[in-house]
């Protein structure tokens, strides 16, 4: 029982971490109809910027305080993401107004390659630490109830709290502001949105910038967990079943999806895995998402897919 709880909890926490990456996808998809293949590359790029600047800035400025160094690095990295968003709008999106989803998807693939090259050129391709003082050692709960207690990870809890805050803020943004409504309009129909005066250019810079900052947050958390290096881009693959299960257009869906996938895959690996030789969690996540989709083809919270004649 203690172990079951532990697995459950571990799954929930892992799920929260996926959600963090998933959020970036959802944001861009919801607000512009673009499936952003570059999300993983953005997470890496942001994390690299953070990791490197937190090392460089104290060197350049001779700052002693780790906190200050980290804060400055975060600001500079956020700045990078903003510039990136701006450039992407200028050089890519603006020229692809009103094109189909796949075309835009492909463009983001181009961006992925570019970022991968650029990131490694500027920041190097070694493995770099991000140290924002996350506690690494485990704590044990209910030690008196279960033998060995239930292990939880403080780092995960912090990450989960941050993810939850982000989601709350973003949901409010989408539901309550007129910009949020405009973003959804853009996703539906670029041209019509333009025709009533929604400035696509500005909107896209905003969205990509917000997505960039989400990527940065995800990058910092994942980076402090794993170390910053190229493989960070693959966490995007882990986020895929999450967004699909939750619904491509739903911010809360990203969280719920994350939790379901996280719990599902951990339980399956731990309880079913040994029977078939293990290593099943990754495909199990997809199968799980698929099962949900068979009941709700648009994901749990996604907007209904409209086909009308």
């Amino acid at each position, binding site marked *: 029982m203690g*172990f079951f709880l*532990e*697995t459950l909890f*571990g*799954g929930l*926490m*892992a799920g929260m971490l996926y959600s963090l990456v998933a959020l970036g996808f959802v944001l861009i998809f919801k607000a512009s109809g673009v499936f952003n293949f570059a999300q993983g590359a953005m997470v890496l790029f942001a994390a690299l910027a953070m990791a490197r600047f937190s090392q460089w800035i104290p060197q350049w400025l001779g700052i002693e305080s780790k906190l200050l160094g980290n804060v400055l690095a975060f600001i500079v990295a956020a700045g990078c993401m903003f510039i990136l968003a701006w450039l992407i709008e200028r050089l890519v999106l603006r020229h692809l107004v009103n094109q189909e989803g796949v075309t835009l998807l492909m463009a983001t693939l181009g961006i992925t390659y570019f970022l991968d090259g650029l990131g*490694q050129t500027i920041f190097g*391709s*070694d*493995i*770099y*630490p991000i140290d924002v003082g996350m506690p*690494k*050692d*485990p704590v044990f709960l209910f030690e008196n109830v279960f033998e060995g207690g239930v*292990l939880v*990870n403080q*780092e995960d809890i912090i990450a989960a709290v941050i993810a939850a805050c982000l989601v709350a803020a973003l949901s409010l943004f989408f539901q309550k502001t007129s910009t949020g409504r405009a973003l959804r309009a853009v996703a539906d129909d670029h041209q019509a949105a333009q025709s009533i005066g929604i400035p696509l250019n500005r909107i896209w810079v905003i969205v990509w910038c917000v997505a960039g900052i989400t990527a940065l947050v995800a990058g910092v958390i994942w980076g402090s*967990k*794993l*170390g910053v*290096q*190229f*493989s*960070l*881009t*693959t*966490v995007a693959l*882990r986020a895929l079943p999450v967004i699909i299960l939750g619904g491509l257009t739903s911010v809360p869906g990203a969280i719920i999806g994350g939790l379901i996938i996280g719990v599902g*895959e*951990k339980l399956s*690996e*731990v309880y079913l*895995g*040994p029977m078939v*030789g*293990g*290593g099943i*969690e*990754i495909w199990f996540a997809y199968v799980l998402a698929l099962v949900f989709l068979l009941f709700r083809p648009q994901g749990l919270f996604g907007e209904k897919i409209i086909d009308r004649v």
Partner: protein
Amino acid sequence: QAKEQFFPVLVYRTGAYAPNGVPWANGYVDYLKLVNARGGINGVKLSFEECETGYATDKSVECYERLKGKGATVFQPLSTGATFALTEKAPIDKIPLITAGYGRSESADGGVFKWNFPLAGTYWVAADAIIQQLGKKEGGLSSLKGKKIALVYHDSPFGKEPIPLLQERASQLGFQLSLLPVTAPGVEQKATWLQVRQQRPDYVVLWGWGVMNSTALKEAQATGYPREKMYGVWWAGAEPDVKDVGQGAKGYNAVTMQHGTEKGADVVKEILSKLHDKGQGTGPKEEVGDVLYMRGLMSAMFAVEGVRQAQEKYGKGKVVTAEQARWGYENLNLTQAKLDALGFKGVMRPVSTSCQDHMGANWARVHTWDGSKWQFTSDWLQADEQIIKPMVKAAADKYAAEKKLTRRAASDCGS
């Protein structure tokens, strides 16, 4: 034709495995440079060219084809996947492959794998060395009986390679082996470590590469599994695997391919003075002598010494062909004296190959991360030939049967 002996260098300096690929490549290239600085192989200068594979098999094949055309002496793909693919091509092209410390374990059998040279150790050697070390810890191999050992491995041919040996050992010694695969690249291991926590194995053997290693250590820390009880393969025992974990990895052990971090070795000093001090070195000076750097260095040394050996037969001071070089690798005889002269004193033990034995050595040591550097913590360990030899032979025979190959005749060995 060529005046220079050409060495192709397949490297990965970008992508997911770059942190591990770069130091190896630096060591490899630095050694070739060093040989030139020393005057070449009996006066024959070396030339080399890198090709970026990104640790991808198809890129490796492309690089192989590209550099092959330039008169390659020997290839070292530094990837098990690429080794598999190139193993099929090398015999046709008549180019030897050195896979020092990786590749198919059965390719140690030169009777079947004429062109493969897993010099100085295969994965079965590594696995056996680890078991022996565990035995020592427990006070004798027989005390392993009833113990639980978990293998946390990269879910790929590389990771699966040690399983047959470990199973063999498990049935022989009576320990319980549990297999925990980690899907590549290995950034998500929570479930794996929850299982470790549940099973509470006495030891964890870590068979990873790249980000999987540091992630495993971090998860071990997060689930409170003692790092002292973890033993990695030699691709999981270098600086990039632990430095980012720092204190969290303290106590973690890894088997080594003989050498560890060798900042004090003669050859390292020589490289620093002859290359890096003159600004001709490859990569950062501080990393010279690191584990993977040394691995690259050693691999390059093998490549060069085989050619030197071949020159003995085919003409000193001449450029040898790949086919001739193969003979050199098959007849390597790196005695301790020779190694010391090359600057590898204290770094490794003799290696000598033969027609049957393409591995040439089966020694290993264990080193342990003390939070800031690797330190040897074991004596020399020798893999048990009694166990490995028959396994190699059986596996090689199976391969030959599948491929409808016949074992090389004794006469073939001389040539």
